[in-house]
C-alpha cells in the first residue's frame, strides 16, 4: 500500500489568515466613525438597514486593506512591522488577496446600494478606490505628503454613514470628514518621529526621512493649527451643541499644547528623554478624535430627552 506523504504540501490559509488581510484594527475605527455619522444624521434608519449599511462599510474597508496588502507585499517583506502580515509570511498567496479584495469590494458596494442608496454606495466605492489605487499604488511611494492626501480614505466613513441615513451630503458630514482628514497628519507624524521605521529601506518617502524631523515638527504644528477651526465649527452645526463644544475646547487646547511642545523641541532634547513629548502628543491625538465622536454621539443620544443641541439652553 502506498504511504501518503503530505509534508511537502504548501501551506493552506485558514479563516484567521484571511481575516488578517482585512486589517481588523483599521476596520474598528472605520466602523466607529461611520456609526456616529449614521447615528447623528437627522433621518431615522431602520436598525437592520443600519446594521447592514455599517457591515458593508466594514467589509469595504477590509477589502481595501486586502488590496493594499496585495499591492504592497514587496515592501511589507522588507519592513519589520509588516513582515508578519499574511502575504509576506507566506500564509496567503498574493492572488488570493487580490481575489478577496476585488470580490469583497464588489459585494460591499452592490449590497450597500441595494440596502440603502446609490450615494452611500458611490462614496464607499470611491473610498476603496482612493485607498487602494490613489494612496497605495500612487501616492505612497511617490510623495512625502502620502499620508495627508491618502488620509481622505480614512476620513470618509462618517460621510458614508450620514449618506446611508439621509441619501445626501451636507455641511455636517463634510466637517466630520474634514476633522479626521486634518487630524491624520499630526497624529501620524507624531508617531513617525518616535518610532524607528524602516520605510527608507523599502523606498517609501516618509516626511521624517525625506525632509527630517525638524520639518516634520513644523508640519505637525501647521496641521494642528488648521485642525482647530474645523473641530470648533462642528459645534455650531445641527449636530453640535454645548457638550460637543466643551469637549472640543478642552481637547483642542490639550492637543494644541502637546503639538506646541513637539514643535519647540530639538532632536537632542527629544532623544534625551526618549521622545516623551512626541509619545504624549500621539496618545492625546487618539483620545482627541475618539472623544470628539463620542461627544457627537452624546448630543444625538440626549436629543430625545431634550438635552441635545443648543435648543435646551
Amino acid at each position, binding site marked *: *500500500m*502506498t*504511504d*501518503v506523504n*503530505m509534508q511537502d*504540501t504548501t501551506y*493552506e*490559509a*485558514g*479563516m484567521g489568515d*484571511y481575516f488578517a488581510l482585512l486589517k481588523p484594527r483599521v476596520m474598528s475605527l472605520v466602523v466607529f466613525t461611520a456609526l456616529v455619522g449614521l447615528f447623528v444624521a437627522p433621518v431615522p434608519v*431602520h436598525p*437592520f*438597514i443600519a446594521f*447592514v449599511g455599517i*457591515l458593508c462599510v466594514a467589509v469595504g474597508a477590509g477589502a481595501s486593506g486586502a488590496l493594499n496588502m496585495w499591492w504592497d507585499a514587496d515592501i511589507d517583506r522588507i519592513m519589520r512591522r509588516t513582515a508578519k502580515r499574511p502575504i509576506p509570511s507566506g500564509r496567503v498567496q498574493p492572488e488570493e488577496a487580490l481575489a478577496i479584495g476585488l470580490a469583497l469590494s464588489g459585494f460591499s458596494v452592490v*449590497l450597500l446600494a*441595494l*440596502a440603502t442608496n446609490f450615494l452611500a454606495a458611490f462614496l464607499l466605492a470611491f473610498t476603496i478606490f482612493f485607498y487602494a489605487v490613489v494612496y497605495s499604488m500612487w501616492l505612497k511611494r511617490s510623495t512625502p505628503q502620502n499620508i495627508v492626501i491618502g488620509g481622505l480614505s480614512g476620513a470618509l466613513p462618517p460621510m458614508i454613514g450620514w449618506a446611508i441615513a439621509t441619501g445626501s451630503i451636507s455641511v455636517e458630514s463634510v466637517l466630520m470628514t474634514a476633522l479626521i482628514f486634518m487630524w491624520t497628519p499630526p497624529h501620524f507624524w507624531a508617531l513617525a518621529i518616535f518610532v524607528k521605521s524602516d520605510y527608507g529601506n523599502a523606498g517609501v518617502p516618509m516626511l521624517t526621512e525625506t525632509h527630517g524631523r525638524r520639518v516634520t515638527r513644523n508640519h505637525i504644528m501647521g496641521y494642528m493649527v488648521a485642525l482647530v477651526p474645523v473641530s470648533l465649527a462642528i459645534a455650531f452645526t445641527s449636530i453640535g451643541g454645548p457638550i460637543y463644544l466643551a469637549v472640543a475646547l478642552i481637547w483642542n487646547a490639550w492637543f494644541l499644547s502637546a503639538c506646541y511642545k513637539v514643535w519647540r523641541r530639538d532632536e537632542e532634547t527629544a532623544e534625551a528623554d526618549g521622545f516623551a513629548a512626541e509619545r504624549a502628543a500621539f496618545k492625546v491625538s487618539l483620545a482627541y478624535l475618539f472623544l470628539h465622536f463620542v461627544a457627537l454621539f452624546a448630543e444625538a443620544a440626549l436629543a430625545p430627552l431634550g438635552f441635545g443641541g443648543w435648543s435646551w439652553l
Partner: protein
Amino acid sequence: MALKVEHELHARRKNRNFGVLGLLIVFVAIVFGLTVVKVLQLGDAKKFERFDHVARPALAVGAQEGQSAEGASQ
C-alpha cells in the same frame, strides 16, 4: 502501512469550510432580513400586490363590484 488520513492540513481545511458555511448562512440571513424590512416598509400591501401571482380576494371583490355596477347602469 495504513493510510493516515488525519493531518493538520485537514483540520485547517475543516476550519476554512466551516468558516465559509458560516459566511453563507450570514449572507442568507442578511438577504432574508433585508427583504422582510424592505417589504414591510412598503406599508400598504395593495401598492405592490398586483405584481405577484397570488389570489387576491380584495381585488376579486372589487372586480365583482365593478361588474355589478356595470350591470346596473345597463
